[in-house]
């Protein structure tokens, strides 16, 4: 095909026809290349898109088997659902806030180190990041339990007298979730801090800004996109988090994801589970959508 096109190019008068042929060939090749994506698309369709569509459909089917809004009405009528959504939202927000408070200064610290030291310290972020979530949750369960290390050392040091209850409640859940989520905040925050020209700070200092003022007016605004991306990631992951809160919360902290699981495992109530799932999905997408608008605005104002 290509050889014909080249041979044809030397025949005068056929230039237009040749160009059309080449365009057709290019389009065909693009389509063939695009076909390379199809196996991946098929997998996502079978395991994600089709089930999601079906869950959406089932959420509108009542106990009688006909179309009904009862699964959604139940969420509004029953107080327990409102409480679950509030808990999910509060726990996610608290985890995100703590991650920002701990993660931002830590990322700043990493960004200021010489390269070799920074890489060494970065291992402490990557090691937990790669380690199984279940293993880390288990570690906290062991450390925080009544006869656990945290309690026995604190009592020995005289920090408190009675063993405090850290697991199977909110504090244990938050400690575990912050530990799991911290790398998701630190890594993007760090990469956006690393991209900041060091000369900007030098310029600010030479113009007479003190370290504090230079940080807040130059460094901090430039590091915001990374911080924001990390915080968004943490918040969205927290909204649907299951394993860590289920283990460390011990049934005392009930999030939407756990209610969905128990609706299936214990009550085999697909209508209730799928309606909760749809609401969870909508909340997640709404967060991402809102954030995407915000980030774009952020970039526009940052660029000019």
């Amino acid at each position, binding site marked *: 095909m290509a050889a014909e096109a080249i041979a044809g190019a030397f025949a005068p008068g056929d230039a237009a026809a040749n160009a059309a042929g080449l365009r057709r060939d290019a389009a065909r090749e*693009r*389509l063939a290349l*695009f*076909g*390379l*994506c199809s*196996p*991946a*698309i098929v997998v*996502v369709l079978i*395991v994600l*898109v*089709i*089930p*999601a569509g*079906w*869950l959406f459909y089932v959420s509108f089917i009542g106990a009688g088997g006909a179309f009904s809004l009862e699964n959604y009405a139940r969420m509004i009528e029953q107080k327990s659902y409102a409480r679950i959504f509030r808990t999910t939202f509060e726990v996610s927000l608290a985890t995100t806030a703590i991650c920002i408070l701990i993660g931002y*200064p*830590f990322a*700043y*610290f*990493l960004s*200021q180190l010489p390269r070799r030291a920074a890489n060494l*310290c970065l291992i*402490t972020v*990557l*090691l937990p990041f*790669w*380690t*199984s979530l*279940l*293993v880390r949750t*288990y*570690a906290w*369960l*062991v*450390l925080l339990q009544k*006869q656990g290390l945290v309690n026995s050392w604190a009592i020995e040091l005289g920090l408190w007298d009675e063993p405090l209850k850290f697991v199977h409640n909110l504090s244990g859940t938050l400690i575990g979730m912050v530990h799991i989520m911290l790398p998701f905040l630190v890594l993007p925050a760090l990469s956006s801090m690393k991209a900041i020209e060091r000369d900007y*700070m*030098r310029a*600010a*200092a030479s113009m007479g*800004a003190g*370290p504090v003022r*230079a*940080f807040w007016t130059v460094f901090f605004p430039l590091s915001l996109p990374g911080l924001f991306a990390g915080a968004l990631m943490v918040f969205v992951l927290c909204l*649907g988090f*299951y*394993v860590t809160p289920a*283990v460390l919360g011990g049934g005392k902290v009930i999030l939407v*994801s756990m209610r*969905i*699981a128990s609706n*299936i495992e214990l009550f085999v109530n*697909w209508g209730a589970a799928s309606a909760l*799932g749809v609401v*969870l*999905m909508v909340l*997640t997408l709404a967060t*991402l959508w809102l954030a995407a608008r915000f980030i774009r605005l952020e970039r526009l104002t940052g660029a000019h």
Partner: protein
Amino acid sequence: MRRWLAAPASETQVSHGQRLWLYAFAAIVMVFLVAPTLIVVPMSFSGSQYLEFPPQEWSTRWYREYFGSAEWMAATRTSLAAATLTMLVATPLGVMAAYGLHASQLRWGRAVFVLLITPMMVPLILVAIGAFYVYVKLQILYTLAGLVLAHSMLALPLVLIVTASGLKSYDMNQEMAARSLGASRARAFLTVTLPQIRFSVVTAALLSFLTSFDEVVVAMFISGGDNSTLTRNMFNALRDQIDPTIASISTIMIVVTSLLMVLAQLFGRDRSRAD
């Protein structure tokens, strides 16, 4: 030491001494990040029923328990098989998709990219119950094939993102050169492009292995019976009581993860040398 404290630590002439609070804070954060995971290692060698640190008597009791249990061994085999197969499925599919999107530059390529990375955004519990339902219909519930299919979907976004970033720093004109010399598209890709993005591909493969090996929520719903995964059994054991056997399994998992991390690091270093 005193000189170091007074030396400037940043462009704005803040001294190291003025930054000591930051260093102390960072040290605490690093301990917080690493200690809980590492402390499981010595604890797993404790001889008593209650996990102690430091252990009063050292023993390999919990390792014998793990290796001696037919159930744990079967679960480990399932997890290893699922992770290996997931790696073998997700890596080629993800690399193909990344290459297709990169080379075709179609207008709706962006939409397809978003579709293929959505598995990262959807809460796992929804993937789990959705797959559970579909698998009942397809009659592949509790099979290894079903598990690999779901885990491959979860690993696809990672493979796609890592490979796409590898392709971004690769000059496609090299492939053009190979093709103008008579190589077919496939041959040009395999002999020219693939060797140059191999570090991204290896990283992607390791990540997809770990994605499957560590996955809990989806496995809880769609693995079971003879094909129940290690993480599924661990999670169930955790919900009931603190079983010290899990400390030994955790230690083994930490060692495996660290080894994979070192592998990835070695490949990463190779890349910087090659550049």
